């Protein structure tokens, strides 16, 4: 199955990254109320400087609620308003590719085309 932004991803060497298999509960910082806007890789769409950065074509998810909170607290006051809520989802191998790199708490999620964010993510 094709990933979202497959065309852009294909242009980058060794992208997408290795899949960490299995069903995992993961968390994403989102806007409230939740909308599809929260699941667009806004940064890479806005900023050409990231177009060759594989992770930027995926979405940042966290392995624990507390970790997501901790990362939010590390944002500057200016950056924080974009992310005010935390949503939870259970993501399996059929949903796309999820990759854990150097930080055990951080996953980059490359969703399959047609993945239903609004159905799968709930603010907690």
């Amino acid at each position: 199955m094709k990933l979202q932004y497959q065309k852009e991803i294909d242009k980058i060497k060794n992208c997408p990254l290795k899949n960490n298999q299995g069903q995992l509960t993961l968390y994403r910082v989102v806007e409230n109320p939740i909308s599809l806007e929260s699941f667009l890789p806004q940064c890479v769409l806005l900023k050409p400087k990231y177009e060759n950065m594989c992770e930027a074509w995926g979405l940042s998810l966290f392995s624990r609620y507390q970790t997501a909170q901790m990362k939010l607290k590390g944002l500057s006051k200016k950056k924080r308003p974009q992310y005010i809520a935390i949503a939870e989802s259970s993501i399996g191998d059929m949903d796309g590719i999820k990759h854990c790199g150097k930080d055990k708490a951080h996953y980059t999620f490359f969703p399959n085309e047609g993945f239903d964010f609004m159905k799968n993510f709930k603010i907690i």
Partner: protein
Amino acid sequence: MGKKKSVPVFPLDEFERVENIIFLDEPVLTHLKRKNTDYFLYLVDTKIEEQLDVYLLFQVSEENIYNYLTSQLSLKNLILGNTNFIYLLEQDFNGIVNSYSVVTPLSLSSEYLPLDDSFLSYEPTEESHYHTLLNSTSYVKKLRQDAFYVKFSSENSKYAETIGLNELSNDLLQNLSKSFKGFLKADFRHSLENYQTDNKKLRFIYNKLEGDLDLRMVYLKCASFEIGLANDKIMKTSIKDKRIRTWAEEVGLKFKDVVLSNDFSENRLNKIIDTYTEEERNKIFRPLFDITENQNFSIAVKDSLEDSYRRISIRDKGVIDKIIPKKIENEVVDEDYEIIQVTSVVNKNKRNKTIPLEGNLFSSSDITQYHLKIEDFSKYGYPIREDIDISLDIMVQKKHLVISTNYEGEHFQVIEPTMKINEGIKKVTAKISEFYLSVE
């Protein structure tokens, strides 16, 4: 979106990326390195209309990186506690730095700061740059939990509590290490001789173990010199014999309790005397008494970082004689100079002569002299390049040997409680050598 072509005003390309610490669809906090110096690049604002990202770039120490990654320091305090300037960079969405300014942490807009409790507990995978750092340091942390602490201070008010490098290495650490080495060997035998009765085997086991028994240094603080020492319990799991392993894991703290103690009550004294032979006591306690009886320094010990130091001082000097009987002291005394009363006369050729006073009609003096020459410096391990002849005054004051001299406008003095002249000369040589090297 068209790409702007402009010349970068700040050489951000020269910084090598180490790892993204906070990544939220894009790098938010990134560890960079340039010329062996660590920096954090922190994305603080995105101005969509102007198509600009605003970053703080600031220097950060390895210690602070560790403290931040282990939740001991918040990102906010890491930024505000920075003693260097902070670069405020504006980078366009194409990655070109268009402008930068230099600010101090205090002049930084609060809009660019994270929350007070911006703590992070970073969990590195094996791929992470921090994997070894966080794991090896947690090894140190584990050792630190069971460490004991020794503090050496100078008694010379001229230097506050600070200690000279030569004094530290030659007089203090060397003696502490000698004492521990003596204790290891003696205590190994006494603790395990009933368990392993074959002396040959016991010696073989000890020789095999000895290299791994050294205490690990897990804490260091200067001004006065403080050192935390611990047995490496983690690595000692490789010792298969449980009884020997237990001994090896506990011997450091036992050394602290038995040797680095203030308690020389009769009971304890008798126990020490009953447990260790005279020769063993000499090897264990003589180096310690060389420290405690040296008026230039003090030694103190504590059981944990939070405790207060207890100074080790032997008030009843009879204790020393009981632990190290004179007989032993005499046996191990190396060749030494002796004090003889002399007087100096000047002959017609104006050359000094020293004459023993014994049976002499000249009046006596408590002062004698020694000429410190290039050979003395070499002998004590301080080779110097030029011919030198320094006249040392050697005198006895209040049962202590005082060796002093003036050299190149500086006054040097050593008070030697052991009354051993060559020991005093060695110390004053070290002091002069230190000075000589500093002005060379």
